[in-house]
């Protein structure tokens, strides 16, 4: 252990020797001096841990030596040896920083106790020093670690691909990373700690998030939602976002928003849909070839019948053949239109129109065919469906396709005891949506057919169908932001329901008024 070197200073040589011997036998290392000056020299040379010095010495006395030693090293333990009853100098010595005193004649036990005490003090001081030193190292380490972690988090937020925007409890923006800057277009230095939620978000979006803070939602409840974000400079960006309300001990601290820019994803989605559609047209080619062959059969047959009619001057034959030719010409034109509609993107052309009138038009178109096949076409139009702004072409094509399918479903039905009926219904749906339904009591569909209903090239009609009808219908309806649904029971019939959003007619187009 440390604190093992003792300097003994006394003008009486014999006492020095005795003490030295005694302490050496206790395991200490000793150095000696016989007066104050010598004591100081030895102290400087040997740096003992403990000094035992007589107080009364010629020349430099013990008190002076004590003072000088303390000047050199204040932590040195100095034990003063005093004569009996020399209380004044003992007090002075203690005031100068002596750690202990023992009376003359020096008894081994008293010295041993004093030394132990000195050693204990040194030990504690050393421990304390070590502890303090460790503490400093630990604080430095902890500070470094905290700095590192906070840097890490800062970099994490900085380098995130998601835009991160966080607000404190006063809605001031405290976090705004580069990804956020690339969405919102504002420089981070202009935003962070300078802007509030209203400065960055448009009022409607700000209110969404401020309302979020009111909710007592659990923190883990953070589903991603989609919206179109409008930036303060007027750009519209499709994003996916999540919001987390930050609380500490149930107290509102702020909120953080995460945004993912979906522009690229939306573009790719659109591209994918387009290329899938083109592939579908390719797949449909073999089905189409069949369909075209059927048209050719009709045209050839029809022209033969016309030839015969002309040769024999038979008007009836002429009529029949000509009807066949005309019908097949319209099949070619429908097919061409279906193919073009399906393979191209088309924006609906909105204009004021009356869905109930379109129902009438479609019924007129199919009435001959329906009558020839013993199918009744009924309508149930809601007079409340007046003039409204929609794309009439979408409605016309979709309705015609669905009614044609419904007639096919009736003709496919093996149960000829049925009276086949097709009902075309219009009605007002929820706010801003109108709805039409085509319901038949024909053969219905099995699960497999239902599953493949909107697949390209799927047709239940052999060469008599292109497999494009429902695809085109669905595409038109979706481009109109509407929905199409089907309900069917095998052997009992099928119903298709199309819902389309509309605008009220008479929501006047100002430009037209001015002109």
């Amino acid at each position: 252990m440390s604190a093992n070197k003792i300097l003994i200073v006394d003008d009486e040589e014999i006492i020095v020797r005795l003490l030295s011997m005694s302490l050496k036998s206790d395991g200490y290392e000793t150095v000696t001096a016989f007066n104050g000056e010598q004591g100081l020299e030895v102290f400087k040379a040997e740096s003992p841990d403990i000094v035992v010095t007589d107080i009364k010495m010629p020349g430099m006395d013990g008190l002076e030596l004590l003072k000088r030693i303390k000047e050199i090293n204040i932590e040195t333990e100095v034990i003063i040896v005093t004569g009996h009853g020399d209380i004044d100098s003992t007090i002075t010595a203690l005031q100068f920083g002596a750690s202990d005193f023992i009376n003359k004649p020096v008894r081994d036990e008293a010295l041993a106790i004093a030394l132990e005490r000195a050693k204990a003090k040194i030990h504690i001081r050393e421990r304390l020093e070590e502890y303090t030193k460790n503490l400093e190292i630990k604080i430095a380490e902890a500070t470094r670690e905290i700095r590192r972690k906070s840097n890490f988090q800062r970099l994490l937020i900085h380098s995130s691909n998601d835009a991160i925007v966080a607000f404190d409890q006063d809605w001031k923006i405290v976090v705004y990373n580069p990804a956020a800057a690339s969405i919102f277009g504002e420089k981070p230095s202009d935003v962070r700690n300078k802007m509030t939620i209203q400065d960055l978000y448009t009022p409607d979006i700000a209110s969404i998030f401020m309302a979020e803070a009111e909710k007592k939602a659990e923190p883990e409840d953070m589903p991603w939602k989609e919206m179109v974000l409008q930036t303060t400079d007027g750009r519209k960006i499709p994003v996916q976002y999540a919001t987390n309300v930050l609380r500490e001990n149930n107290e509102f601290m702020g909120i953080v928003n995460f945004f993912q820019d979906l522009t690229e994803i939306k573009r790719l989605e659109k591209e994918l849909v387009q290329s899938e559609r083109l592939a579908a047209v390719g797949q449909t080619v073999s089905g189409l070839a069949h369909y075209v062959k059927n048209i050719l059969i009709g045209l050839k047959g029809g022209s033969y019948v016309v030839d015969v009619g002309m040769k024999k001057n038979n008007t009836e034959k002429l009529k029949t053949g000509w009807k066949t030719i005309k019908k097949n010409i319209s099949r070619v034109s429908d097919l061409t239109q279906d193919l073009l509609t399906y393979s191209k993107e088309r924006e609906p052309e909105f204009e004021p129109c009356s869905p109930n009138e379109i129902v009438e038009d479609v019924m007129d178109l199919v009435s001959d065919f329906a009558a020839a096949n013993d199918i009744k076409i009924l309508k149930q139009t809601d007079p409340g469906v007046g003039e409204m702004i929609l794309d009439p072409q979408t409605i016309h094509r979709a309705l015609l396709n669905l009614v044609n399918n419904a007639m096919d479903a009736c003709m496919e039905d093996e149960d000829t005891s049925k009276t086949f009926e097709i009902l075309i219904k219009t009605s007002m749906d929820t706010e801003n949506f109108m709805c039409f339904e085509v319901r038949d009591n024909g053969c219905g569909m099995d699960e497999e057919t239902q599953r493949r209903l909107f697949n390209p090239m799927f047709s239940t009609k052999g060469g008599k169908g292109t497999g494009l009808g429902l695809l085109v219908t669905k595409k038109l309806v979706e481009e109109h932001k509407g929905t199409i649904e089907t309900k069917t029971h095998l052997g009992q019939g099928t119903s298709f329901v199309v819902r389309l959003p509309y605008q009220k007619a008479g929501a006047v187009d100002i430009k037209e008024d001015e002109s």
Partner: protein
Amino acid sequence: MNKKVLVVDDDPDVRSFVVTVLEENQYTPLVAHDGIEGLEMIEKSAPDLVILDVLMPRGSGIRLYRHLKTDDVLKNIPVIMFTGIALKSFLKSQKALDEFKGGEIPRPDIYLEKPVEPEELVRAIQKKIG
């Protein structure tokens, strides 16, 4: 007396074409719109020849053909298959049905793939019933 030829086809264009060809060549045409009606007509009117489409709603030509060929009385009525389906596909379906139901149904006497020139149809009819 003119010979009776029944045309079973769901396509009105095909029916009017075949009917005209038959009339022009001194046959008496009979028509049926589907397989079920076709069988009724055969039983009722005993035609000399049947011109039969394959793909039809309500009782396909395949079903009617098998019915005719497995009926002791009706199996002697000659049948011309008249269809848009390729012969290969038709034979494949026949083979599958033979295996499934047991027995072997004879091939159709004549198999014509639409579209067909009127003369070709007439030649086929004449070959069977003069």
